[in-house]
């Protein structure tokens, strides 16, 4: 039905900060106790998951450049074939990987402020309206004390320069220098692939955040 001018019957519930003790509800072992039999985690891969294993890590810096230590981070990503494990993804010719949900959560470490995920590098997903494929990317969402409404951003990969240059979302970001804030740097550590991605909440080099 078309309702071009009428008011919606309901309004979205207002967001509030996750607060400093977000771990109690969402990562209880980090708060310091065990309660649930099954816990969500920062490890998205199982032995049978398809794709290149990567470690994604970084820090979240505040407006003074100091690492924050109480941030909740969640990622949502496609599988190695570039398909989301969700009924709305009907891309043809790309299989769901039953061993990959594509979602994980973690918190920055209370001492070091470093966070990390163990996941796979996603494939390319079709863009809006199916016009252009997007470059491989991971959707990142942050919530914490002092953050009144969750922040959305994307993580792209430094070794995908060609795909990044054609990505419909990156191309939109202006000035172009800000695109660099969305690109994780690839390195190899003890034979494992690591992508480093620091989030700068405010000030010099401020990360691009999206109103999704």
């Amino acid at each position, binding site marked *: 039905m078309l309702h071009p001018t009428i008011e919606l019957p309901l309004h979205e519930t207002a967001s509030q900060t996750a607060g400093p003790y977000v771990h109690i*509800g969402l990562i209880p072992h980090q708060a310091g106790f065990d309660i649930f039999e099954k816990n969500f985690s920062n490890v998205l891969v199982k032995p049978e998951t398809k794709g290149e294993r990567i470690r994604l890590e970084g820090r979240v810096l505040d407006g003074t450049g100091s690492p924050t230590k109480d941030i909740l981070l969640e990622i949502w990503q496609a599988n190695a074939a570039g398909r*989301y*494990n969700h009924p709305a993804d009907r891309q043809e010719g790309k299989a769901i990987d039953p061993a990959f949900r594509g979602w994980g959560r973690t918190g920055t470490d209370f001492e070091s402020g470093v966070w990390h995920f163990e996941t796979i590098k996603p494939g390319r997903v079709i863009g809006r309206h199916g016009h252009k494929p997007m470059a491989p990317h991971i959707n990142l969402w942050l919530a914490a004390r002092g953050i009144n409404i969750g922040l959305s951003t994307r993580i792209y990969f430094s070794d995908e320069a060609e795909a990044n240059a054609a990505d419909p979302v990156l191309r939109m970001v202006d000035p172009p220098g800000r695109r660099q804030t969305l690109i994780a740097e690839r390195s190899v550590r003890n034979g494992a692939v690591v992508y480093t991605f620091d989030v700068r909440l405010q000030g010099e080099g401020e990360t691009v955040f999206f109103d999704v």
Partner: protein
Amino acid sequence: MKDTAEFFQRDRSLQPPAFTPVYKTSVLRSPRLALWSLQNSLSEVTGPVFGHDELGELDNDLILNYAKTGQPIGERIIVHGRVLDENGRAVPHSLVEFWQANAGGRYRHKNDTYLAPIDPNFGGCGRCITDENGYYYFRTIKPGAYPFRNRVNDWRPAHIHFSLFGSGFAQRLITQMYFEGDPLIPHDSILKVIPDEAARQRLVAKLDLNNTVPLDTIAYRWDIVLRGKRSTLFENKLEGN
């Protein structure tokens, strides 16, 4: 086709801005540059799917899910309601998580040093999945107020934190629920960051005597609204989207 529809643009006038000096921690943790508007692609309209097999039987019962030597001390309450979208449609089969302090306002968290004691039988967290009508419920102890370092004498009203998923990652929401009649509500530096009075009032759960268990547990009712989806009418939709 309703699963692939895009979400309504978020009404930021009903949401707290990032920079709210009355809540001091926001000063250094708020982006100074504008958010970049991103029209929905598959990355935004999809999101994680959770199953009942991932939850335990007592996950929505905070009176029993950390009971060690007995039951926790405090006012026994049921919190229940529906998760809807802005069109008034139920949001079924979606994960709802919640966490809170105990009856004395103390959190079971290694960083909470408030002098009120831990309750040995209360963990303070739970979760459930909405049913086909978007309905959720859990049983708990009413949390106490507690002081926090903002202004020199700031106290949080009794509240329960909620985390919601919906069906797409763009609906992701964390918020807090308050209790009807709490005199701390108008003084709260964190609730104040929401500019719209009606939006603040919608975070307050109502006493629900009709759903109490007589001689056992009082009930509060709180409905949650996530972003709605628009119908896709005359848009070019190519194969694969």
